[in-house]
């Protein structure tokens, strides 16, 4: 996929995630909104979100990174993706 061809930028990751969320939540989301506190994430959707992040950016999110704090906001997910894509072997 094209995701791995170029190093993702903060803007490209954030835009992708906001679009994915908007498609599913049916309204625009701000990058700093706590999605879980806002009750926007059902149990199935939480898993879809993790899988989407992995697929869209070609990263693998291992056990230690599967923490709620990494997924609370678009900003947090963006930071996670950028960190994982910089990691050696990513």
């Amino acid at each position, binding site marked *: 996929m094209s995701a791995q061809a170029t190093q993702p930028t903060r803007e490209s990751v954030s835009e992708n995630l906001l679009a994915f969320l908007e498609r*599913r*939540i*049916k309204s625009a989301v701000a990058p700093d909104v706590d999605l*879980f506190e806002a009750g926007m994430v*059902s*149990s*199935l*959707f*939480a*898993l*879809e*979100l*993790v*899988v*989407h992040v*992995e*697929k869209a950016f070609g990263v693998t999110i*291992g*056990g*230690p990174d*599967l*923490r*709620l704090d990494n997924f609370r906001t678009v900003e947090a997910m963006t930071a996670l993706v950028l960190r994982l894509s910089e990691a050696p072997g990513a």
Partner: protein
Amino acid sequence: MPDQATADPAAAPENTGPENTAPENTAPENPAPGNSAPGFAAPDFADQEIAAVEIVGVRTVDLAPEPAWPGADAADLAGLVTELIGDQAGAWDLDGHIPREIVRELGRAGVLCAQAPAAHGGLGLSNVDAGELTAHVGALCSSTRSLMTSQGMAAWTVERFGDDAQRAEYLGRLTAGETAGVAFSEPGAGSDLSGMATRIETEGDSVVVTGQKVWVTGAAYADLLVVFGRVGEGAGAVLVPTDAPGVTVTRVPDPLGCRAAGHADVLLDGVRLPADHVLAGAGLPLEWLVTSALTYGRLSVAWGCVGILRGCLAETTRHARTRQQFGRPLADHQLVARHLAELHVAERAATALCAEAARGRDAGGPEHVSAAVTAKHFAAGAAVRGAASAVQVLASAGARDGHPVARAHRDAKLMEIIEGSTEIGQLLLADHALAVWS
């Protein structure tokens, strides 16, 4: 409870309970009536060319039910399973046990968690190929298939939530002959897992697990249990050896179906383990943890239901061709033929939904999460209806415990309860439909 004798977990619980001798089923002349299809293979479809369907307009996929796993090793798996199960599934069902050696053998061959990565000793099958293998086993023996579902869920949970060291350790063991069960349910937490009360508490470099789990498939055979419970404000999963002090495994006596799958209640009385038994993802919201495991389990159960339908097709078509009433084969009576047609459609449709979810999982897309619920929901209902009509077609010939269609009838019903009941599936799917369509 009849089987408190099994309170010592080290005492090979499945061999001690008198409750499984099934005294009413001792007819020695034919312990497995009608179980004459030891080498069950998916039938040759005369209409294979119409089984190629367009999936979401992207690619054309052949949904013929032949196992399609690559390489001779994998192709041998179906043969190996067929050989190991032989014509014993009916007898195991009556007896309530699969011989421990058979379980070990299946585990050592990697069949029980066939998707586990090759790097950790697994077969590394794709979800599509593992699904076909699951259906193959499901057609022969739903109890054995249940063990695959549990072992696969355990392996997937370790792969998903474990760190590198945990993956190496536990996937290595699960692909080398040890077996595992997965424990979510509790007396107060069935459909509503938020009622889970089991606690996983760290004390220095130990962890202490306290709680009560019920209906854990495979627990009576298991070396390890993946136990879900509360970790602080969130949830976590911990690997508990069944021989650890404080673990008591008590068989569920006389389950309605999948009788040899070793369902058991598990008491965890302050079980103290090294802290590294807790999988690394601990602290996540409960739904995250369980949804990941359940998504695996749903797809596996759905393939198992495809197997039940295939087993019923094999039995009903053979019987309808050979049994004569009113001067002609049953199949020539249109009301009987209708059962065959509906079974055929059910098997094809369930296979298509399973294949779609499995391909989605192989492709790594988020769609596979709801697709697994869809496949499980449809396949379980179809298996229940299909097995009931198979009993109808066989009539008295299939109306005996241990007969493949009688087993199918009982086994299928439980598929509407596990990994999220029919009703819970409907709630999830309604949510999904609203999110996607409204």
